[in-house]
């Protein structure tokens, strides 16, 4: 499995040179080699910054899908303490495409729920590549209600291409599961903070993402449908996904302009997959800050503001 994206080649080459140099230096330290290393390090930093400053929408899609990009369980470990995963919807099954349970953020107990794409073939297959079944959404709903019962602020992390769409999902009411979650989040009586960490794809993402504050990592995407599916609907050709990605305005920068998201969380140079600890720290800081301001708002006011936030989305003439 290649984890170097096409447009990351210049970065990968510099990294290789740096590694070789460091080996040489370890074996035979020489001032010339030290000097050369300094040049390569600076070059690498600059190249990273340059490549990642101007990613096209389609490149962002690839970054959002990167195999090494941190997922919900990585952040659960890096940012939270005592994360205690709960399983099952109490009706049908446990769905690994959604994970969740109580955890502490900066000492404060919250309910953490997020999509999990999986790592490596076996884990990814068992999690259906992060495409949840209805039972995943119903597990999430169970945890939302528990958060409400115990007054835990809800933190959700979105990272799914879309909800699963097979015959079995129809039999178990995928559309009904999504609708119930979306509606439940609209009236849930705890603060809700959502961060799109990778792919925020369609209703399958929204069903964990109706929030008081909607944040987005710098290179994440948020879209009405995966670009391939959108290209198929729009132009009957899923190979036109790169064009669809541009037309759908799915980048964090576009979504700030559209007033869909509230804030962009910057990623380390080279993206979250290049520096997982750096990405986690940036996310932690944003979560702590936003939760603080949400918790200072009375619940009634939060609920009506949440209603107003979604009520005003739309563009029309009359």
């Amino acid at each position: 499995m290649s984890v170097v994206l096409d447009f990351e080649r210049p970065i990968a080459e510099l990294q290789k040179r740096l590694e070789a140099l460091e080996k040489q230096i370890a074996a035979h330290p020489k001032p010339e080699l030290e000097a050369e290393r300094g040049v390569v390090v600076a070059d690498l930093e600059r190249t990273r910054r340059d490549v990642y400053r101007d990613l096209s929408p389609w490149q962002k899609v690839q970054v959002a899908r990167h195999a090494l990009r941190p997922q919900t369980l990585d952040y659960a470990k890096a940012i939270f303490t005592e994360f205690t995963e709960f399983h099952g919807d109490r009706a049908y099954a446990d769905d690994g495409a959604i994970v969740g349970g109580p955890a502490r953020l900066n000492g404060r107990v919250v309910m953490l729920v997020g999509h999990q794409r999986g790592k490596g073939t076996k884990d990814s297959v068992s999690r259906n590549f992060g495409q949840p079944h209805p039972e995943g959404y119903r597990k999430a709903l169970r945890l939302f209600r528990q958060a409400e019962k115990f007054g835990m602020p809800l933190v959700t992390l979105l990272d799914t291409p879309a909800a699963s769409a097979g015959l079995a999902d129809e039999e178990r009411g995928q559309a009904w599961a999504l609708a119930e979650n979306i509606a439940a989040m609209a009236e849930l009586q705890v603060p809700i903070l959502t961060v799109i960490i990778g792919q925020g794809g369609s209703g399958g993402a929204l069903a964990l993402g109706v929030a008081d504050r909607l944040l987005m990592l710098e290179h994440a995407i948020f879209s009405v449908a995966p670009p391939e599916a959108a290209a198929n609907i729009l132009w009957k050709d899923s190979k036109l996904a790169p064009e669809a990605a541009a037309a759908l305005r799915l980048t964090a920068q576009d979504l700030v302009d559209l007033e869909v998201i509230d804030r962009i969380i910057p990623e380390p140079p080279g993206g979250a997959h290049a520096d997982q600890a750096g990405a986690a720290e940036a996310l932690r800081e944003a979560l702590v800050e936003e939760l603080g301001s949400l918790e200072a708002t009375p619940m009634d006011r939060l609920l009506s503001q949440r209603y107003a936030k979604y009520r005003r989305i739309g563009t029309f003439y009359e």
Partner: protein
Amino acid sequence: MRSFFRRAVPGDSGSAPGGTAIPDDMWVRCPRCRELTYAREWESSFKVCAKCGYNAPLSAQERIALLLDEGSFHELDAGMRSGDPLRFAPAGRPSYHDKLAQWTADSGLSEACIYGRGRVDGIPTVFSMLDMSFFAGTMGSVVGEKIARACELARDERRPLIICSASGGARQQEGSIALLQMAKTAAAVRSLGRARVPYISVLTDPTLAGVTASFAALGDCVIAEPGAVVGFAGPRLIEQATGEKLPPSADTAEFQLEHGMVDMVVLRRDLRAVVAGLLRLFLDTAAIRSSRPLSDGLLQVPEDEPVSAPVVAG
């Protein structure tokens, strides 16, 4: 199918069912089983095929004639038109602007949704419906706004809400703005629910994706029309994506009844009586008669923070 009706039945969108303008010798072919029926018979049976029972799509006028008391419907916000939030105009592809103009010209409609006040068997209601003949009934800003206004009107006037859905899902050309109409409409339905005003959702052929997965699934009672394709992805998309061949029953109204997703499948000729009966049951409780809301935490826009008018200029 639409164009066939236009050819076969002059003034299709304007004439009431059973209208006398249809000549005796005109035939209509059932879009599902291909059986030929006299146009006049087809219209007077509200476009239900006598052979296979298929419930063909109804225009707004036909649906209103089927469900509401004669002359009782008064449409609101009829002139609302979509903006172009993404300025969707990829090079070499049809722009959203052009698509909207084309659908308007083809259908004679300004958008995929209507709503207004109307009575069912004397009971004042708010009625709304989606129309497949404009942009495949897809939900963008206008559909989302009209559904939300219908919910809020029903809530504020304590009139039961009836929505007849027919839609391919979210409108891609509005991107995440279309996606978020799911949250907007679902929240509005819950706002209605907190005020204890009943909502009856009628799913007609086809109701799919983002529309099913938001307001359409959330009725206090969910009714589906016989044979209607109703669900999330829909059989065609599932077959495309998975390569599995689905049984013909997949994602039909009857399939959803069997799997517990809808409360009942109702024949078109019974629809008005069933809806009226349901409304009487829902409305005849002490809580409703005293107009007590469900609890605190009513969902509405705060008074000191009015909704900034989402109207676009020019």
